[in-house]
């Protein structure tokens, strides 16, 4: 009984920690690498991104944004669809021009480099480009490889330019890695023939993600002519995941707890049946039905608590261990395409432990009610002679 409860609770705690860790990593990747908390852009840009739909005077906006205390960083990005071409083939990409120092405050691409460096600042003969590992693999790109980027500039002219790969990044999202390439903002401006002081979007990263809606509302008032989107508006899938994260965790827990509940009922029924004669004797010599009922309930609570606490401690210790030493889950490698990590650092908020302990006690009581009712229905005259 004890080990069954301990294993059940451990499984519940650990799988919850694993699921939350997976969701958290997806969430962090999505915000820090792909979306950022808030974006400011032209109103039609989200639906039909076009090189001509830019925010004029973006530098002034950036200067204002940096004064807002809730904002960690803001970066003006230039972006358009382009064609990447090498001797091994060509692929459609999304070319983004960034100001490296600003971008480091809103994105973690510079931390995801597996080869080379983030823009070094040295302006060579051939401008630098950062590519994802997926694209590098498909086009057989290495560091210092040449990559031709072709785009249609603001004037409608097809404009090709040669870049040199200075860094290869690898995020947790293979689709993102195949699609996104980065160049320095000035290079983008030059190739696209855009004037200075414009951006297609301004990415804003907040100190507290929870402030997103609050800050966005404030910005909508400040820039009514522009569209201010939070990550929730940008990615419905991510918003749904965030909303359902806690509910799913509880649904998952409830399923495990229900299994545990049936386990306890079964074990306690067996115990009541095995101790039929003992219970009959107790009632015969004068133990009241209420005391017998209470005894069975308390036994179940003690057993659930002992096993439950052991399971919670083992589960929490495992979660702490795999928080520092992420768990490699090769079986989930296919999910990388959707932004789910191949390595999961488990997490579990401490308040979940409290709710789990309360649930274990509650279930201990609930599960023992039926066996306890069965026990008090025994006829002592019959059970004391039972062989």
């Amino acid at each position, binding site marked *: 009984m004890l080990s069954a409860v301990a294993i059940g609770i451990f499984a519940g705690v650990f799988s919850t920690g694993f699921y939350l860790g997976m969701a958290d990593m997806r969430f962090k990747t999505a915000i820090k690498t792909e979306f950022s908390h808030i974006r400011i852009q032209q109103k039609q840009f989200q639906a039909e991104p076009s090189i001509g739909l830019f925010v004029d005077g973006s530098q002034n906006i950036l200067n204002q944004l940096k004064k807002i205390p809730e904002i960690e960083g803001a970066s003006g990005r230039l972006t358009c669809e382009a064609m990447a071409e090498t001797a091994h083939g060509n692929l459609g990409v999304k070319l983004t021009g960034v100001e490296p120092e600003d971008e480091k405050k809103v994105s973690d691409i510079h931390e995801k480099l597996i080869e080379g460096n983030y823009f070094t600042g040295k302006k060579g003969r051939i401008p630098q480009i950062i590519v994802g590992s997926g694209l590098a693999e498909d086009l057989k790109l290495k560091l210092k490889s040449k990559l031709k980027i072709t785009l249609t500039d603001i004037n409608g002219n097809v404009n090709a330019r040669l870049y040199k790969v200075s860094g290869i990044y690898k995020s947790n999202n293979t689709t993102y890695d195949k699609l996104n390439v980065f160049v320095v903002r000035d290079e983008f401006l030059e190739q696209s023939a855009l004037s200075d002081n414009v951006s297609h979007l301004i990415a804003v990263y907040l100190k507290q993600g929870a402030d997103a809606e609050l800050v966005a509302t404030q910005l909508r008032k400040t820039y009514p002519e522009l569209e201010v989107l939070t990550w929730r508006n940008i990615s419905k899938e991510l918003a749904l995941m965030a909303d359902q994260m806690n509910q799913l965790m509880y649904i998952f827990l409830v399923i495990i707890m229900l299994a545990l509940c049936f386990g306890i009922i079964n074990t306690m029924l067996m115990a009541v049946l095995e101790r039929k004669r003992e219970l009959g004797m107790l009632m*015969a*010599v*004068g*133990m009241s*039905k209420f005391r017998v009922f209470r005894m069975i309930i308390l036994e179940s609570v003690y057993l659930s608590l002992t096993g439950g606490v052991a399971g919670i401690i083992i589960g929490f210790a495992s979660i702490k261990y795999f928080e520092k030493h992420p768990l490699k889950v090769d079986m989930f490698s296919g999910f990388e395409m959707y932004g789910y990590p191949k390595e999961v650092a488990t997490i579990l908020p401490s308040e979940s432990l409290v709710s789990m302990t309360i649930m274990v006690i509650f279930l201990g009581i609930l599960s023992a009610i039926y066996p306890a009712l069965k026990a008090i229905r025994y006829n002592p*005259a019959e059970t*004391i*002679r039972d062989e």
Partner: protein
Amino acid sequence: MKILELKNLHKIYDEKTIPVHAVNDVNLAFEQGEFTVIVGPSGSGKTTLLNIIGGLDKPTKGDVLIDNENLNSFNSKKLTLFRLRNIGFVFQAYNLIPVLTAKENIEFIMQLQGIPKSERNKRSLELLDEVELSEKAKVRPAKLSGGQQQRIAVARALASMPKFILADEPTANLDSKSAENLLQIMEKLNRDKNMTFIFSTHDARVVKKAKRVITLEDGKVVSDVISAS
């Protein structure tokens, strides 16, 4: 002094289908300090009668009066409390709690009665001494012989300071030496403490020691003999 009286007692099982008259018009009275044996062949109604006297079963008809209180008028809760305070039970299969020591088995009934710990401790040690098992105080039932377990059961029955002790076939599972030893202890308790014992038994050794022998057949009292000694 009359402590127990059975008046026109009937117990009929399966009244509506095939009625079995387990106890049929039994009228008996028991005095304080009796050492009474109820004998009879299997199915004669001994155990049923003992269960009715002990408040574990209800008669179909008739009255059970203990100190002039009629058990029939008690509800289940009151009956349980009455058993706890007035009746000691010794069962054929000992029925000790396996996870408790000998001393704890004796103490728990006093705990149910709400007796303070120091008093429980004192009395359980005295009772262990009376059943000559002081050295086994901390031993669990599994490590005791059948005879020793039954002596602990007797001590447990005495612990609640009952008006009388009901013993259903107490020697049935014991070898002759253990049975003799147990009976000597019971006789001593009857003699020294004036404790009333009512047995149901097949065992001739118990019958030999009895001061009164009641014979049942088909639920009826066919003889009630009080020994001259």
